[in-house]
Each structure stands twice: as structure tokens, then as C-alpha cells.
């Protein structure tokens, strides 16, 4: 099989039970903007075809499938070995991988093994006269930095939820990929407890609206107020690290430097002081609203609309007012 010269190799992330991760749509969308997406799915036996169909629906007509039982027991290396085999056929100028924990590990190992240039946490890819360029939002969005490879393939991990572009669904042309196991020893996965995917609310990454709560909510029960406002607005729910550490919400809700980076149309911070590590993950939001009892809270420095007040009085009034105005 021959591949177009401008092929971009996209590693589609698949959960242990075969679910294609949402990041795939943005990765394929980004690839289509600079070339022809060729997707790679690495799954447990029996899950390849369904994953490939999903990749085609996201716009990657050509999909290479590698089914291997190793995905259940070996950390990262099965996907790395498959990427090596796929790249040997395609000779891509660009390899796109999700900047998830698993994606980062795979991209890093792949770049180290093939001695390719690695660009991490990109928010976009483009092309100039000299080749492919990766764009990054650095230091909490204070800087925009472009990077490129001096030669050869550029391996890029793409921030989840950062790409809005979507490719048109394509007709599936699936092909089985033969993969030789690499020599690199892997850590062994001894058990997996797959997270139950919650439905209803939008996903935090890439959401158009986010309502986040901090330590100021006081307890897991009282954090319900954040959920209520989010549901009224059709927003995703986020949190500060202090709220996560206090056990109000799971770790996956954490917005900030070591959590999720979001850049929604609307970000509402409730009872969050606005520590620099929190701001790093949300200060590029279009409109920022903050409600905090402390008039000197640093969150007000980045807010478009700040309210010095108690969340337990302001938010119920806000919800009632929104309901009333809708009626």
C-alpha cells in the first residue's frame, strides 16, 4: 500500500475496553489541516475494527489496525512498537499523539527510540515554507511559542480539547499492521480499574463553559451548588486542587498547571483564591467570572466580572434569576 506524501500519522487513543477516546477527533482534525490523516489504532484482540470505524468517522479514511493482547499487560510499549512499524511504512513528516498521560509516555518513548524531535503540549499545528510547525501556550498562556524540527519527523503531543477543527467523516480503508515487538522492556500492568464514564455534563476538556469550585465550597455536600449552576448553564464542572485534596471531587476535575488546561468561552470560579497554579490552567478563557468573599483574592486580577460576596448567597440568587429570565 502506498501512502500520500503529506501523510500525518495519528495515534488514536483507545481505552483498555476498546473505547476510542474523544481526543481522537481533534487529533484527526489537526492532521487534516496540514496533510492527509492516517490513523493507527492499537487495541486488544477483537476491538480493532470498531475503533477503526470510529477513526474513519472522525475523518481518517486510512486506518492501520494492530490488535495485541499486550495492551492489557504492558505499559506504553505496544503502542510504541506499532508506531515504529506504521512510520516505517508511511514515512510521515508529522506524528500526532494526545497529550494524555498515556499519550505522553508513548510519544516520548517513540521519539527517544527513533531520535525524532519531540514537541509537547501543542495547541495547534500548521505549516510554513520549511515544514510543520507546532504552537504552544506557555506559562499559563502568558506566551505563545512556535517550534519545529531541524530535520526528520516531528512528534507532537496535542493538548486535549485544544483543537476545534474537525475533519469530515471518511470511508474506511482499514489495513492490518504487522508489528514486531521492540526490545524495550516495559512495566507490567497488574490490574486496571476502568473509570465509569459519567454522562450528562459536558467533558471538562474542550467545554465551552466551565464552572469550578474551590476550598470555599467547604464540603462535598456543599459542592453540589457548583453542579447546580453548571447544569443551569450547560457547563462542565471543574475544581481547584484544594477542592480535590479536600475530597470534594475526583482528581480528574482539577483545573490548573498540574491538572486540566481549559480555555472556554465562560469560566466561573466559585470560592477559588486564584493561586498562580490555578490561573495557569484557565486564564486564557474568553470571559472569566469570579465570586469570592475576599476582595483581595488574586482571581479578581484576571476576572472580567468579579463579585466580592458569599457563594452561598450569590449563586442561589444567580440560579433563580437565570431560571426566571428563561421562563
Amino acid at each position, binding site marked *: 500500500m502506498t501512502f500520500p506524501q503529506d501523510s500525518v500519522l495519528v495515534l488514536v487513543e483507545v*481505552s483498555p475496553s476498546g*473505547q476510542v477516546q474523544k481526543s481522537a477527533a481533534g487529533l484527526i482534525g489537526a492532521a487534516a489541516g496540514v496533510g492527509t490523516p492516517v490513523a493507527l489504532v492499537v487495541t486488544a484482540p477483537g476491538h480493532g475494527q470498531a475503533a477503526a470505524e470510529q477513526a474513519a468517522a472522525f475523518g481518517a479514511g486510512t486506518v492501520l489496525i494492530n490488535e495485541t493482547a499486550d495492551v492489557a499487560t504492558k*505499559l*506504553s510499549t505496544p503502542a510504541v512498537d506499532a508506531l515504529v512499524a506504521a512510520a516505517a511504512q508511511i514515512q510521515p513528516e508529522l506524528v500526532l499523539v494526545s497529550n*494524555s*498521560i*498515556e499519550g*505522553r509516555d508513548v*510519544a*516520548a*518513548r517513540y*521519539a*527517544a527510540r527513533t*531520535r*525524532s*524531535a*519531540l514537541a*509537547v503540549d501543542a495547541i495547534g499545528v500548521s505549516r510554513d515554507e520549511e515544514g510543520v510547525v507546532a504552537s504552544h501556550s506557555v*506559562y499559563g*498562556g*502568558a506566551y*505563545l*511559542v*512556535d*517550534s*519545529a524540527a*531541524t530535520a526528520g*519527523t*516531528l512528534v507532537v503531543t496535542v493538548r486535549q480539547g485544544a483543537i476545534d477543527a474537525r475533519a469530515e467523516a471518511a470511508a474506511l480503508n482499514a489495513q492490518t499492521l504487522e508489528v514486531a515487538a521492540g526490545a*524495550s*522492556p*516495559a*512495566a*507490567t500492568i*497488574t*490490574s*486496571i480499574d476502568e*473509570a465509569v464514564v459519567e454522562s450528562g455534563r459536558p467533558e471538562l476538556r474542550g467545554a465551552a463553559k466551565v464552572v469550578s469550585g474551590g476550598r470555599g465550597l467547604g464540603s462535598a455536600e456543599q459542592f453540589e451548588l457548583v453542579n447546580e449552576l453548571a447544569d*443551569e*448553564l450547560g457547563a462542565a464542572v471543574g475544581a481547584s486542587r484544594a477542592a480535590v485534596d479536600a475530597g470534594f471531587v475526583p*482528581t*480528574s476535575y482539577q483545573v490548573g498547571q*498540574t491538572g486540566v488546561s481549559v480555555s472556554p468561552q*465562560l469560566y466561573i470560579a466559585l470560592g477559588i483564591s486564584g493561586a498562580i497554579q490555578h490561573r495557569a490552567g484557565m*486564564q486564557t478563557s474568553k470571559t*472569566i*467570572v469570579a*465570586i469570592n468573599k475576599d*476582595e483581595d483574592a488574586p482571581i479578581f486580577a484576571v476576572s*472580567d*466580572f468579579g*463579585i*466580592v460576596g458569599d457563594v452561598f448567597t*450569590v449563586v*442561589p*440568587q*444567580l440560579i*433563580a*434569576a*437565570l431560571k426566571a429570565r428563561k421562563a
Partner: protein
Amino acid sequence: MKIIVLVKEVPDTYGDRELSLESGLSNRSGEVVLDEISERAVEAAVTYAEANAGTEVVAIAMGPDTVPTALRKALAMGAAKAVHVLDDGLVGADLGLTAEVLAAAVRREGFDLVMTGNISTDGSGGSLPSMLGELLAVPAATNLASFQVDGGNVTGHRTLDQGSYEVSAALPAVISVTERMPDPRFPNFKGIMAAKKKPFETVTLADLGIAADDDSVSRSIVISVAERPARAAGVKIVDEGNAGEQLADFLIAQKLA
């Protein structure tokens, strides 16, 4: 048992962090500190060494001439030895070169376990641990929120979006730990004094047998840097009983609700 902890010096997140618009390099003239998660890796290594006689902890860092302060902190916390990789050829090093250099420094020192932070506060790369696993040809168990070492194995717990994993790796291995690990200790006076007498080695690229300017190797380079304009100041009101109403009006006027 020999544990190598890789520590990184970073600009203090609590200060203003700047990038040079010409070079794309971070400005280190302000406060520089030991990366918060690297610090937790030191804490975990030292805690293990205290409970297991015969464990040696060596801290290694690559970076400019300000790095010894960060390394001295690791020594004051309880590491037995520090190695600083310092070379003009490393200015602006990309992830690939950094990984090669650190892998060479680790190999030169010898190791049973390499510990790193999962992601640094400045680069947000989160890629060195896996790159090191590949270059050192050992397993890498990354993003561990907790870990144990016993019987020649390291085991740990990691949480991902898709769920939580228990993993294990035979030593020698690389692990990276997350911010969920216990808080680092504050070095006490005794530790700070003891640190002054501990071995501190400075090594160059030549010592490691690495040529940083090898043009045949593909590198990632910065081609442009721009500062995002500062946010315009917004409005701030004090709730006088109708702030919720006012916010509802604002959201509706902005077509956000």
C-alpha cells in the same frame, strides 16, 4: 540499592515567569527553585533510604550555573551525593538532548532505581521519564501516586482519565511520581550543614561523551515567541444583596447564558 533522583531547577511559579522574546529561553534572573514535584521525588527517595539501610541516594540535575542551589537543597534533605551536568553546549537543549544527557549521567553513576517528577512546572513536558526508560533500556512505571520497592520490584498505583492502574517493574527501572506524593520536608540546620560536606560533582558533556552540536540528529527548536497581551481589567462589584441578579444580566447580555 542505589537510587538516582533527577531534580530540575525551575523559575519559581509564585514569581513572574518570563521568556526571552529573542531566545525563547526562560529568564532565570528571578527566583529559581527546586521543582515542586522533583522535591517530592527527593522526599520519597530519602524516606525510603532512611527505612532501608544500605540505600544510597544521588541527586542529578542538568542546567545552568544557578543549579547548585537546587542540588544543595536535595543534599540538605538527605541525598548523599549530587551531580551537576553543566556545559555551555546545553543552553536551549531540547527534550531529546536533555534525555540523552541525563541518561548518560545516570549510566555513569550506576543505578537500581531512577526517580523523577512526572511533569515539571516550567516545561510541562512530562516526557523525560519515558525517554529515559527507552534510552536506558529499562522499564518505566510513570505517574505513580504511591509506590513500594520490595524483592527487586517496584510496584505502584497510577490514575489516568480512563481509570486507575496497578503496575510493577523489575529493577533496574525508572519511575516518575506525581504531586500526590507526601509533602517534602524542610531541610533543618543539621541537614544544611551536613550538605556542605557531601560529595558534589560537576560534569561536562565531554565527560559524558556527548556532542551537543551533532547536526545529524534531529532537534526540536523554538522558531518564534510572542507575549500574549495582558487581560484588560474587568469590573468588580461588592454584593449588596443583588449581585446574583446583576451577574445573570451580565451573562445574558454577553450571550453566555
